[in-house]
């Protein structure tokens, strides 16, 4: 309600203020159902069927048994440091074995800065795994980035869940 003076007569009139509201449109990105965000924030697409189910079964079973059984066939107590190192190693190679099949691709593509390749190739402990990468093959390069940067050990449960689905 506002007061308007008309011919010195005060009268109350309703003044409608026509506010021009600017509607802000936020475009919501439509995300695919098979999108998975790894623990370090990389957006990945899960490629169902990239690895044959019988290969997953064989690798998973062997990895589980390697990690839990000693040379004599008796279950490990899991308490010694050596046993824990072996278990960690088994599951790390298991992750790489599964990721190698291209079960994920990068949703946002490879980083434009290729410094990661230089860093990776300069790391001595990755030498044996890197021997398998064909740096001229774009698919292999993407897999390498996923194996060494995009997916971490914290994503192990999710990776197993995906491939067993």
């Amino acid at each position, binding site marked *: 309600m506002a007061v308007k003076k008309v011919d010195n007569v005060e009268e109350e009139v309703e003044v409608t203020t026509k506010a021009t509201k600017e509607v802000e449109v936020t475009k919501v990105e439509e995300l695919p159902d098979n999108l998975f965000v790894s623990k370090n924030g990389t957006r990945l697409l899960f490629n169902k069927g990239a690895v*044959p189910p019988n290969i997953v079964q*064989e*690798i998973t079973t062997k990895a589980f*048994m390697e990690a839990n059984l000693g040379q*004599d*066939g*008796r*279950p490990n*107590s899991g308490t010694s440091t050596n046993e824990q190192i072996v278990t960690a190693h088994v599951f790390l190679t298991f992750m790489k074995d599964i990721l190698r099949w291209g079960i994920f691709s990068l949703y946002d593509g490879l980083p434009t800065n290729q410094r990661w390749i230089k860093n990776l190739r300069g790391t001595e402990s990755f030498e044996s795994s890197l021997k398998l990468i064909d740096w001229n093959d774009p698919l292999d390069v993407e897999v390498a980035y996923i194996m060494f940067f995009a997916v971490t050990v914290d994503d192990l449960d999710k990776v197993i869940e995906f491939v067993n689905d």
Partner: protein
Amino acid sequence: MIIKNYELETRIISNIDIYNVEMDIPEPKAPFFELDDGRVIENYHDPVYNHCVMLYSQLKSSVIFERILETTISSYDMSYLDRNEWKRKWKLIKENHRLNHNEKTAFLLYEIFTDDTDKEKLVDSVILTENRVQKFFNSVSVVRQGVDVREAHVKNAINTGVESIPVIVGRLQIVSPLDEYKVASESGISWNHWLKDDMTLDDKASAIALYRLDKLVHLHQEDAAQIESERKQKKSGA
């Protein structure tokens, strides 16, 4: 045989041929457990041990299936291996130390026989399975006082606890070679003859089925005789 449009040439083998397989993982053993009184026993209830036993049996079935592939598929068109899609897959299989197969077998395992139905189709056509024996076993009708002998109760049966560990591929159980040996020897067929002669899988399955049915009929006859003898003893005692 045609599986997923791949034409494969197969041959029949003897069950004993697939039993002698070597595993590259040790057979699980129960872990030791120390009791309060200091005695050490093997703990068969350990969950990791039990899980490993189950996985070991699955792995053994896979190794046996691999043996079946290697020994029963005599040939297939090797030009399939030149396809680019397979070449990439083979590269990944070859570099994985847990997938230790030659290319010919790997192609059969991971490209052709990827589902259980196809595996069973092969296994049932090249090796003697309980499925095949069962068909013959159920085909002859024998009753005990009107009840099928296969379902009739045996009062005086003794459980000896002696059994052979079954070998299962997919959902098919392989006939134990011990059963084959018993049938062959009791039928007057030499073991060598049973293995090498041109007996079809149906011939062997029917021989095993009739042998088992005959044993079952004898068991019922002995059971009936025992019941009768107990009845007489009871009567004379009273």
